[in-house]
């Protein structure tokens, strides 16, 4: 029993954090909103080069042969940086599904030559400019390669949405488990939520220490302090559940236990990021309520990611069923 990350895992995370700081700062995120494909130029190739896209692909297939425990803090960093790419969809779900199905599309996916997104529930897909979609079809997964979708605008400009209207070409992904795919998507999103919450808290702590009213930093007022202390507490008691769920996804063969752990993680991470967003906005005042100020990048991620792949209610219901109430 040792509940901590290894030095190698921490170093990998640090490297990815630096990459995002360098290649995906807020200005780059904003520019991606105006690009045709909604992407940050060069970022995907850089992630491929660093091996990030191949974390969950087996070594025999040219991947790193790592697992969700190695990946979870990297996805957290994607949330922290507000990365507008469908990274969780591709890295945490599509790549292992392709590997488990032995599908030839894996090679391009880990080389960064393609981007694959998801459609596991409902008809909305995120990252609509992707090359393919891992789609749930009854109790199986498919790799959809040709489809029709209507464009839809998310409140979060970093999410290019499409509403799926027709599928015209798809390969079966035999051997890939749709329930496991869902758990991976929920876990990855929970990790992103933790990163988004960290960024919101950090930005707000910095802001309230600088901003003066009544001759003092607003961060010296106890009401503000307690709002932010509550965010810190919510975050520090949600993150361990996310790491614990990563372990379960990687090592627990019992789907019920895995689902329970993932749902605990997503419920708490959604709640933490939601609180972080509300308090970040409140403690910024009107500046936080502008389009120009960068806080909005994370506020919008918070709202959409808290609900994506199951909101708090959904995941609590799943835990309830798992523990017999």
């Amino acid at each position, binding site marked *: 029993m040792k509940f901590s990350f290894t030095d190698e895992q921490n170093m990998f995370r640090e490297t990815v954090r630096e990459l995002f700081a360098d290649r995906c700062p807020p200005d780059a995120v904003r520019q991606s909103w105006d690009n045709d494909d909604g992407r940050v130029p060069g970022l995907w190739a850089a992630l491929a080069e660093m091996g990030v896209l191949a974390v969950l692909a087996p070594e025999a297939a040219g991947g790193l042969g790592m697992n969700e425990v190695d990946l979870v803090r990297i996805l957290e960093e994607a949330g922290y940086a507000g990365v507008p790419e469908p990274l969780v969809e591709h890295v945490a779900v599509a790549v292992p599904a392709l590997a488990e199905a032995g599908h030839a599309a894996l090679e391009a996916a880990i080389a960064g030559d393609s981007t694959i997104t998801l459609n596991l529930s409902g008809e909305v897909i995120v990252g609509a400019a992707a090359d393919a979609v891992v789609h749930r079809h009854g109790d199986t997964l498919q790799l959809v390669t040709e489809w029709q979708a209507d464009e839809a605008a998310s409140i979060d400009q970093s999410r290019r949405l499409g509403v799926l209207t027709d599928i015209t070409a798809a390969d079966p992904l035999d051997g890939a488990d749709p329930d496991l795919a869902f758990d991976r998507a929920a876990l990855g999103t929970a990790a992103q939520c933790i990163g988004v919450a960290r960024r919101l808290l950090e930005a707000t702590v910095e802001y309230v220490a600088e901003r003066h009213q009544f001759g003092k930093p607003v961060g010296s007022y106890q009401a503000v302090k307690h709002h932010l202390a509550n965010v810190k507490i919510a975050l520090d008691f949600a993150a361990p559940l996310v790491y614990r769920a990563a372990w379960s996804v990687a090592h627990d063969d019992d789907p019920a236990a895995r689902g329970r752990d993932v749902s605990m993680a997503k419920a708490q991470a959604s709640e933490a990021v939601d609180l972080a967003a509300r308090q970040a906005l409140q403690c910024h005042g009107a500046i936080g309520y502008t389009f120009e100020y960068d806080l909005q990048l994370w506020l919008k991620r918070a709202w959409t990611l808290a609900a994506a792949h199951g909101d708090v209610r959904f995941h609590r219901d799943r835990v309830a069923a798992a523990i017999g*109430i």
Partner: protein
Amino acid sequence: MNLDLAPQYVAFRDECRQWLTDNHPGRIGSMDTAIGFEEHRAWEKVLFDAGWSVPAWPSVYGGCDCDLIEWLIYEEEYWLSGVPGRVSANGVSLLAPTIFNFGTQEQQDFFLPRMASGEHIWAQGWSEPEAGSDLAGIKTKAILDGDDFILNGQKTWCSRGAFADWIFCIVRTDPEAERHQGLTYLLVPAETPGMERRPIGRLDGEPGFAELFFDDARVSAEHVLGGVGQGWAVAMAAAGSERGLSLRSPGRFMAAAERLRALAANVTDLDPRLRDEVVDAWIKAQAYRWNTYQMAADLMEGDEIGPEASEGKVFWSELDLELHATALRLMGPMGEVAHAGNDWLDGYVFALSGPIYAGTNEIQRNIVAERVLGLPRR
């Protein structure tokens, strides 16, 4: 990361569980009454004789050298088994870490084994009528006279202070010094002439609080812990233990969460809103557990507990309240009915005090904001 329990830990868990099952004393009186206090002392002796009273201590003092993981497992099993609570907790959880840190060899050799066996049951004498959250405002004076200190003043809210054998106090040994200066940690025998103890009824009516009145009470200077004038530093080290995992390990809340789960599972036509509350509380108990295992991993690497302990204090006390309040809601009109089997009601009344004792949650949030997040003090 490795979350599998190694075989030796699995065996340890089984051993704990077996012993607790075989030695469960059944229901005993409330430790906040004179009779129940002695019944709890007897239970401490049973634990001690079997080596289970202070498992994480070195064996020379009555422990069994358990590592942190074993201790967490022991606590989980302890609370799950439903055996009585620990009347020794103030001593074992709050004072002992301080004695290990600051005590002289003589103090360690004298106090620790007696604490382990339940011969000495300790109470905490910090709060005063004018000094609650603002502990540095304490006024009880202790003036050196030969080999003794002469105490004058008053302490209050001293849990089980009317029944305890010893009281660990913080007193002002330099009346000229202000606030955090001139304070000393002093270990005071209950039978000290000149000290009067008066019980005060707690919310439930039981005499679980005591006021202590010092009127030229004489205490040997041998009983200073950590040096004259060092009281604040010693007290803050103890406060870290009080807030953190040594007073409230996850096992306690996991057991309550499990009982809540079982209670909810037996309700027919469970209201979905109540079900949601039950699950939320249950998840939070797991969150406290995994946060603790994370901290344990850091501690085993040699880290020390910092101001984050205040996050834990807020979290466990509010979790405890949520667990009990939810249980009472599940019981509907029967929730308020006081009878020997309604542990949820007693538990609820006690949980209400969690956000107050061990430093109020407002104070803890100040600490989180200022010392963890680094927000400006003023």
